[in-house]
C-alpha cells in the first residue's frame, strides 16, 4: 500500500466526509480509501473537524418523548445493512457498486472491455479492462473524471499510475493514458458528466478530426 503515490485532494476528501460529492465520485473515493492508509487517516481528520462542528452547533431541545422512544427500541430486531467484502482486486465499495456480482465485460474493440456499473445524468461508474500497451479509450472528458487503478498500471504525460493510484482529470487535461506492458490494466472510472455511448474507434479518432 505504500506504493500509492496519487492521492485524493484534501478538498475532495472534505466534501466526501460531508457527503457532498456526486455519487460516482463517492464510489471512487471510498474505494481509494479502502486501499490507502494515508487517505483513510486524512478522512478521519476531516471527520474530526466535522465532529468539532457538531459539538459546537447550537443545541435544540428535543421533545420529551424522544429519549424513551429510542430506549424502548434498543432491543428491537433490525436488519443490518449488507457488508460487501473485498474480492480479489475489487475493494468493498466496488463490490457494492457491482451488487456483489462478478464484472460483466462488454467488448469495446481492440481488446478493451468495459462494464458500466451505473450511469445517469449525474454521472457514471464503470470498470475498464485495457490490454497491455493499449491506449485507454474515452480519455477526453466532458466533466471531471476519476480513474482508480485496480490491477496493472497505466502511464500518461502526467506520470505512472499503479494499483491504488487515483488520477483526476478535468476537461482541460489532454493526455493519452496507455496501459503499461505486462498485466492488463483494470480501472474504475467515475465521471460527473453523462456518459457518451460511442464506439471506441470513432472516439479515438475524435482528436484527429476535432469532432
Amino acid at each position, binding site marked *: *500500500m505504500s506504493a500509492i503515490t496519487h492521492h485524493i*485532494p*484534501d*478538498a*475532495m476528501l*472534505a*466534501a*466526501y*466526509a*460531508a*457527503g*457532498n*460529492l456526486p*455519487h460516482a465520485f*463517492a*464510489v471512487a*473515493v*471510498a*474505494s481509494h480509501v*479502502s486501499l490507502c*492508509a*494515508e487517505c*483513510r*487517516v*486524512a*478522512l*478521519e*481528520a*476531516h*471527520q*474530526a*473537524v*466535522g*465532529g*468539532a*462542528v*457538531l*459539538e459546537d*452547533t*447550537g*443545541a*435544540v*431541545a*428535543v*421533545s420529551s418523548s*424522544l*429519549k424513551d422512544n*429510542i*430506549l424502548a*427500541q*434498543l432491543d428491537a430486531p*433490525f436488519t*443490518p445493512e449488507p*457488508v460487501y*467484502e*473485498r474480492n480479489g482486486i475489487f*475493494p468493498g*465499495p466496488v463490490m*457494492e*457498486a457491482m451488487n456483489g456480482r462478478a464484472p460483466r465485460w462488454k467488448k469495446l474493440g481492440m481488446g478493451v472491455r468495459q462494464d458500466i456499473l451505473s450511469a445517469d445524468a449525474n454521472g457514471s461508474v464503470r470498470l475498464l479492462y485495457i490490454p497491455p500497451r493499449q491506449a485507454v479509450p474515452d480519455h477526453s472528458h466532458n466533466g471531471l473524471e476519476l480513474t482508480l487503478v485496480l490491477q496493472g498500471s497505466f502511464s500518461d504525460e502526467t506520470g505512472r499510475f499503479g494499483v491504488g493510484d487515483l488520477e483526476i482529470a478535468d476537461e482541460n487535461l489532454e493526455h493519452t493514458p496507455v496501459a503499461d506492458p505486462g498485466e492488463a490494466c483494470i480501472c474504475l472510472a467515475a465521471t460527473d458528466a453523462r456518459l457518451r455511448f460511442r464506439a471506441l474507434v470513432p472516439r479515438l479518432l475524435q482528436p484527429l478530426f476535432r469532432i
Partner: protein
Amino acid sequence: MARRYERTPVSQTETETELSEQTHWMIAVRDNRDRNAFAALFDHFAPRLKGFIIRSGASAHQAEEIVQDVMLTIWRKAAMFDPHRAQVSAWIYQIARNRQIDIARKENRPMPEELKEEPGMEPDASQILAIEQEAGQLKQALATLKPEQREIVEKAYLGELTHQEISAQTGLPLGTIKSRIRLGLERLRHELKDLKQ
C-alpha cells in the same frame, strides 16, 4: 464484530480519569451495552444533532426522526467504534451525515471498507488520549477563526459546499488537520503491521 468485546476494557488503564465523559460512555456502550451510558450520550448529543440537522435544512420533525436513526445506529454499530482512531463526536458526525444523505438521495452512500482489528489487541491509552487532545486543539483552532472563515468551515462540513468550492477556500484549519493526520498514521501503521493485506 464480537471480537471487540474480547479486549481489555480501556477503563482498566491508569489514564482512565483523563479521558472525556463522552469517550467513557461510548466505551461502556460498546463493551458493556450500558444503557445508562447510552442515555448520557443521548442527553449530550441528541440536542446538538437536532440543531446540526436543522441547520442543514430539515424541519424540526424530520430532524428528530434522523436523531432517532442516528442514536439507534450508535447503539447497534457501537462495536465499530475505535477510540484509537476517532473521537466520539467525529464518529457520530459521520453517522449523522450518512443518514442525512441516505435519506436525501434514497441510496446508500458508498463507504470505505471497515478496518478489522487484530483480536485481543491491547488498548493504547496514550493514543486514545492523544486523539482526544487533538480534538481539543481542533476545537480551539475553530474558535480562533474569524467569523467568516468559521462560517466557511461550518458550511463545508454541513455539506453545503462542493469540493470545487472548498478547494477555492484558504480559511480551512489545515495545519491542525495535518497534525491529526500524522497522529492517525502512526496508529494505523501500528495496527496494520500484522494485518494481512
